């Protein structure tokens, strides 16, 4: 069975918390990449969105991208993710099936109520995808906003239909139709 990292929420009270989706998603990717094993360096473990944020932008908040977060988790935890752009969705499927997790930028405006963990938010967002379910092709998505802070908000990882993941990923500005940008973990299923 594929290793499942613990869910890490972005709304943790830390600096820039509501802009820390990519930082939280990368924290979960770092856990998957290392299978939860502490690198035992001078930095903290387990990974925290705040620690990644402090590396990405120590003096200001705002959005962060895949490269910035990759550089941060490489420095902090020795996690060398593979950042790739405009990967066809069918190929993304192969990468997940073959044993990798991925951070994916998405457009939140297309997320239906069932999966919406931030009602009214319609902008760019970052999620972590851990695995694909063979029976129906759904993906196990860790949305850093899904912390059940209110009764209507989902809690923890959710199985998203492949069609929803594709729609949300390809709607992210600057993405080709049918494609996805992503930071992939190492293949942990070797």
């Amino acid at each position, binding site marked *: 069975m594929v290793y499942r990292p613990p869910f890490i929420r972005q709304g943790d009270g830390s600096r820039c918390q*509501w802009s820390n989706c990519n930082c939280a998603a990368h924290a979960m990717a770092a856990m998957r990449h290392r299978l939860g094993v502490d690198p035992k360096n001078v930095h903290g473990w387990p990974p925290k969105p705040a620690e990644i944020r402090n590396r990405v932008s120590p003096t200001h908040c705002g959005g962060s991208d895949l*490269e910035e977060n990759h550089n941060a988790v490489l420095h902090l935890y020795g996690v060398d993710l593979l950042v790739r752009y405009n990967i066809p969705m069918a190929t993304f499927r192969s990468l997940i099936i073959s044993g990798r997790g991925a951070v994916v930028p998405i457009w939140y405006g297309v997320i239906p109520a069932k999966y919406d963990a931030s009602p009214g*938010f319609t902008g760019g967002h970052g999620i972590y995808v851990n695995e694909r379910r063979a029976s129906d092709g759904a993906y196990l998505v860790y949305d850093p906003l899904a912390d059940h802070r209110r009764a209507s908000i989902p809690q923890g990882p959710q199985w998203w239909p492949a069609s929803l993941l594709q729609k949300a990923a390809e709607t992210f500005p600057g993405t080709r139709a049918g494609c996805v940008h992503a930071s992939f973990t190492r293949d942990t299923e070797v």
Partner: protein
Amino acid sequence: MPVKDQQKPPPKAKAPIEDHKRHADEVLADEAYKVKPATLNTGNDEAKP
């Protein structure tokens, strides 16, 4: 779209895991996918609490 992907379609979902791993390795090594689009959004936006 990179030529390599047009020539070698990804394996079907139920293909052997080795086929997926081989395809994944080919794509990850392809320089075409390492190029950041000039029009790419700079990052995420601030969500609502």
